[in-house]
């Protein structure tokens, strides 16, 4: 062990770490405080004497109530959830099959195909949204959830494929060969032997894909137009700001509620999420 003096540990470890924690979490805390603060307390001059700047003397749930009753927020939550789940399933399906093919099968152009799938992973949505909007319109998909369900996989599949390909490569080939000697077809061995072993990898990819599609903004902003069809990020931006007026209480309540589902999924599967995160980079 490398032994340290006590004061050194404070200076080099506890203090910086505490600063990191405060810096990282303060915006969330502020989001929360704003969401439960009554308007009268919110819009007060920055120099006014405020007895409890970091807490509120009269916590209220009004902003949440207004958000849920006066806007289509619950509908946005459901839209986001539905779109995220379906596009994650599509991406996992494609990623599983493609990842297996690239990891295990020998066919011409395998290398080129693997590289080009990787390259599409690096094509940002902001490069394509203008022509895609046109294509979506031509396919008559504009303003439907399918516009997003079909386009989100474009950035989810490459990532799922690469993650799962890496995972499949760690599974010994002998397992599959044994199954085939016992009479399983190639396809059967893949589905019954390899996929079940890859469940942790599938979970990582799925959770990561879910949070990515929950986060997506620009496609949702461009492809959807009616308020009741929107996803949470777009709905919050376009419907909770009327003209130049920001309803900060409602906005922060919306931000909080819109973050909770991903935060919950994440907190249950931190380890898988981290695998997805680091795996996607190493792939």
């Amino acid at each position: 062990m490398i032994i340290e003096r006590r004061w050194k540990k404070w200076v080099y470890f506890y203090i910086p770490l505490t600063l990191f924690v405060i810096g990282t979490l303060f915006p969330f805390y502020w989001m929360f405080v704003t969401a439960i603060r009554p308007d009268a307390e919110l819009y007060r001059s920055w120099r006014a004497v405020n007895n409890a700047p970091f807490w509120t003397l009269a916590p209220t749930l009004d902003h949440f109530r207004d958000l849920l009753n006066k806007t289509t927020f619950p509908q946005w939550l459901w839209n986001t959830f539905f779109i995220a789940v379906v596009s994650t399933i599509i991406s996992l399906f494609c990623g599983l099959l493609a990842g297996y093919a690239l990891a295990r099968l020998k066919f011409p152009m395998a290398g080129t195909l693997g590289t080009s799938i990787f390259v599409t992973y690096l094509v940002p949505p902001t490069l394509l949204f203008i022509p895609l909007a046109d294509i979506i319109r031509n396919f008559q998909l504009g303003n439907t959830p399918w516009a997003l369900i079909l386009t989100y996989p474009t950035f989810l599949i490459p990532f799922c494929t690469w993650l799962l390909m890496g995972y499949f490569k760690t599974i010994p080939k002998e397992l599959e060969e044994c199954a085939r000697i016992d009479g399983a077809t190639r396809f059967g061995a893949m589905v019954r032997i390899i996929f079940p072993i890859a469940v942790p990898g599938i979970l990582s990819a799925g959770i990561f894909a879910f949070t990515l599609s929950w986060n997506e903004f620009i496609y949702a902003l461009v492809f959807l137009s009616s308020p009741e069809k929107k996803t949470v990020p777009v709905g919050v931006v376009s419907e909770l700001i009327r003209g130049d007026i920001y309803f900060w209480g409602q906005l922060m309540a919306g931000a909080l509620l819109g973050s909770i589902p991903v935060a919950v999924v994440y907190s249950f599967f931190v380890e898988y999420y981290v695998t997805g995160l680091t795996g996607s980079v190493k792939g």
Partner: protein
Amino acid sequence: MKKPIAGGAGAATGVEVTLASSGVSRPRRGPLSPLENERLLAGVLLAPTIVLLGMFIAYPFVMGVWLSLSSTSVGNVGHFVGAHNFVKAWNDSIFRTAFWNTCWYTGWATVFKLTLGMWLALLLNRSFRGKRIVRASMLLPFIVPTVLSTFAWRWMFDPTFSVLNWLLFRAGMITTKLPFLSDGDYGMWCAIVVNTWRGMPFFAITLLAGLQTINPDLHEASSLDGANAWHRFWHVTWPLLKPVTLVVVVFSVIQTFSDFQLIYVLTGGGPANATHLIATYAYQVGVATGLLGEGAAISLFMLPVLFLVVWLQLRYLRRLETT
């Protein structure tokens, strides 16, 4: 009989012939039997991916290039205009500002994310009580939808009710309000801060994963040799961490360079178009104004930079594979 076992996936057809003729066991002949052919199976497995990516990446890309060379706008089928849109964008002072803003923003945000992320990773790599919960909470900015957390920041930077102004004022560091988002230069720095806040966890967690693969004996050995903490980092940790760092930086550069939502929410490109990035300006021209051709041309300006970054990354991956 030795061949089928050692043959592996590479000799699939050979495996089958040997098995079938030896009669030890016979693969079932079901409706899926054509899938025993490796090439055919690969084709079938890859088809959904290729179709989706072809339809929603390759096709839009080609179409984007065509749009950028045409005078198309909403409700108006354009005609071929050559490089007109690109020349026009390059002579447009707002575009130039946006282009330099993008480079400035990417450069500084990457430097900050890397430095702070590395520092945080080194802190998290030590053992302490509550490590799991601290590590989990550190990733929160990365999980929460960017648009939503950026709203929290926008509220913290609010011209009239900024909590940061309040804090700095109370701490005696300022006497008048800082114009966080109402001044172009301040606005860019605010965006860099928010981007750093959001992207740092990604660096920290990935670098932490890299750190954990480093054998602690190496550190012990070098400290016995008299190396101090800085030397240990510079001569032991950093060389081993370089490959993963490079990959993370490449990913982050691509994401930051093509960023849209953060600026869209934080400043909307204002004040007076001073904080536009390439992507937000392309949105303003292409979608808000409806000049599809010009918008497509503007967003294609991202391509050379992205191309360079991807090319470097691929070259690096190749080098890793060959060694």
